[in-house]
């Protein structure tokens, strides 16, 4: 058989409005300003001068293949939870690896296994800032979850718990979102047990500080994004 691959960009179904969006961000200036600034390579040698600053957007749509671990992400779309297991050493990976990294296994190909929707918090952080795409959902908790039986941990959102109640070792249940879309955000976690207050990582003053901080962040997000704001922590 003659092998003739189809171009990945032609092979996919998606909303073509994103092509238009990528065309709009086309490196052409959308504004300029004559800005007063400084000149000088040390703070004791500074003089004033002006600079021309332009605004220049650009945007792209990436056509990204999940390669040999596509089954994991297809599984998310179908609400199934998979990892991979090395037939030589038995290590189970989630995130999955298509090849075992154990030095003795000589890049052995792994096999797919279905995983339980249970795990425990290995570590976590309450987030009060983020990269652009996630600002609307602040504040939120990211927890790295060791899925039962796995040798690695998966980053997920942890909800239905106050940030000061979380600690490494807390048991969690793993869930799928209602409308899965094929990335790791299709998963989230909730506590599977009542948090043990004796394991709290923060001092009473630290908790008060964090409560205030989280309120401020929530108010900022609501003010900035209005009805689009979706804070994950409510205090």
């Amino acid at each position, binding site marked *: 058989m003659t092998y003739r691959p189809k171009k990945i960009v032609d092979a996919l179904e998606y909303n073509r409005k994103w092509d238009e969006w990528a065309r709009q961000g086309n490196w052409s200036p959308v504004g300029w300003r004559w800005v007063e600034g400084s000149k000088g*390579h040390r703070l004791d040698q500074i003089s004033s001068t002006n600079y021309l600053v332009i605004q220049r957007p650009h945007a792209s749509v990436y056509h990204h293949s999940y390669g040999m671990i596509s089954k994991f992400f297809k599984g998310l779309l179908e609400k199934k939870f998979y990892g991979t297991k090395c037939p030589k050493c038995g290590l189970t990976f989630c995130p999955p690896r298509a090849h075992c990294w154990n030095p003795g296994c000589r890049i052995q190909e792994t096999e797919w296994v279905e995983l339980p929707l249970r795990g425990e918090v290995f570590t976590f952080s309450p987030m*009060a*800032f983020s*990269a652009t795409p996630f600002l609307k959902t602040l504040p939120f908790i990211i927890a790295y979850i060791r899925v039962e039986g796995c*040798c690695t941990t998966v980053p997920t959102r942890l909800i239905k718990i106050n940030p000061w109640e979380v600690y490494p070792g807390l048991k969690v249940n793993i869930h799928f979102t209602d409308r899965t879309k094929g990335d790791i955000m299709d998963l989230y976690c909730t506590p599977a047990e009542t948090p043990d207050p004796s394991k709290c990582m923060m001092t009473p003053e630290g908790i008060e500080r964090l409560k205030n901080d989280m309120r401020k962040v929530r108010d900022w997000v609501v003010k900035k994004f209005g009805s689009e704001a979706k804070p994950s922590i409510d205090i």
Partner: protein
Amino acid sequence: MSNRVAIVGAGISRFDNPRFELHEELCAEAVQEMLADNPNIEYPKDIDAVMYSYFSDHLAGQLCFHWIIHDYLGLLPKPAYRVESGGATPVDALINAFMYIKSGIFKNVLIVGWEKMSELNTPKVNEMIAAASDTDWDFPVGGYYTGYYAVLETRHMHLYGETEEDLAKIAVKNHNNATFNPYAQWRSQHGTTFITIDDVFKSRIISWPYRALNCAMISDGGACMLLASEETANKFTDSPVWITGIGLGTDTMRPGDRVDNPMYKGLYPEDEALYPDVSTKPASPYPEMANFGSMRTSGDMAYKMAGIDNPVKQLDFAELFNPYDGVELVEYEDLRFCKLGEGKKIVREGITEWGGELPCQLSGAHTAAGHPVGATSIAQATQIYWQLTEQTANKWKTNARALSGAQRAMLQGHGGTGCQSGVIIFERG
């Protein structure tokens, strides 16, 4: 291969946000300073090759930026090479230049590093830097570098018990050091007033346990350094600073993969034995997600080469990679300033403060001097060079942080969440 390698010149273009000058103009300022300070350098004749250091094509929207810099500095047709390894980019460039000279192919290698991060707004800068994490796994859940380092520090706090106060104390030390540094962004934006622990707690929360004053700044700036072989060093200076050790190490791209990592299992048995009983012991108890194995590996390699077995006693000062204050605390352990879990003791006893046994970050470093990624470690190396040649008081116009008689210092840099680390030991001639 016995040929030693020396620093014979260096310069910095101050760190700030924004610097409106073009990238190449920032680099030119740094090279100008080096040439003004060392008239013995015949420029460009004495430059055999150039190692360029800049991190993110995304931040500038420009690939192969070093071709722009190279002709701008009048260095054609000399060999030019670009290095990119996240935050380790500049330390990597220095180590690569060292190896270029060691190979015997080149005698004098110039290293030029820079970054301009002010062209995008703060969430977007964080997004572009997060593109240096695994974008299939860590980024889509809302991850970004402060967040990744926060979860790592949470884990270390859980196992070894340092507090938010300990982290704040590191922030205070570094910011107050930076108030004397005329190349520092904190001094430009804030002035010369000292801060307190309370100021750190009042600063905006970013990702618990980190607040704004615990975090690296977003900066523009440049730096350069000229390394020379033993054969040519004397032509340039009577007071060279020698590189007597280098080390490199790596760890996983995804921090979450470090739990049972078979590649680290059993590597550091003395640390594995110190694992506390607050948590179930993973298969890879050191470094797991709490410490930085890449730093331990790179530090040990450099110490061995330089003949160091007690860094606190044998080093006079250090410039460490400190994008977030917990990293500095954890580095104290990974670089063997103390035993695993005792980083907090180093903080509490003031060992790394000005006047302490091993002052760290006299420049202020990432959180206070600034962190234009491709320039940062080169600027730190420049500050080390000035300290070891006793030029700091003159360069800074104050002796408030100028050491007298310092013989030996360490530079440590890393990229990602400690995915790659480099260490260099410097000694005065």
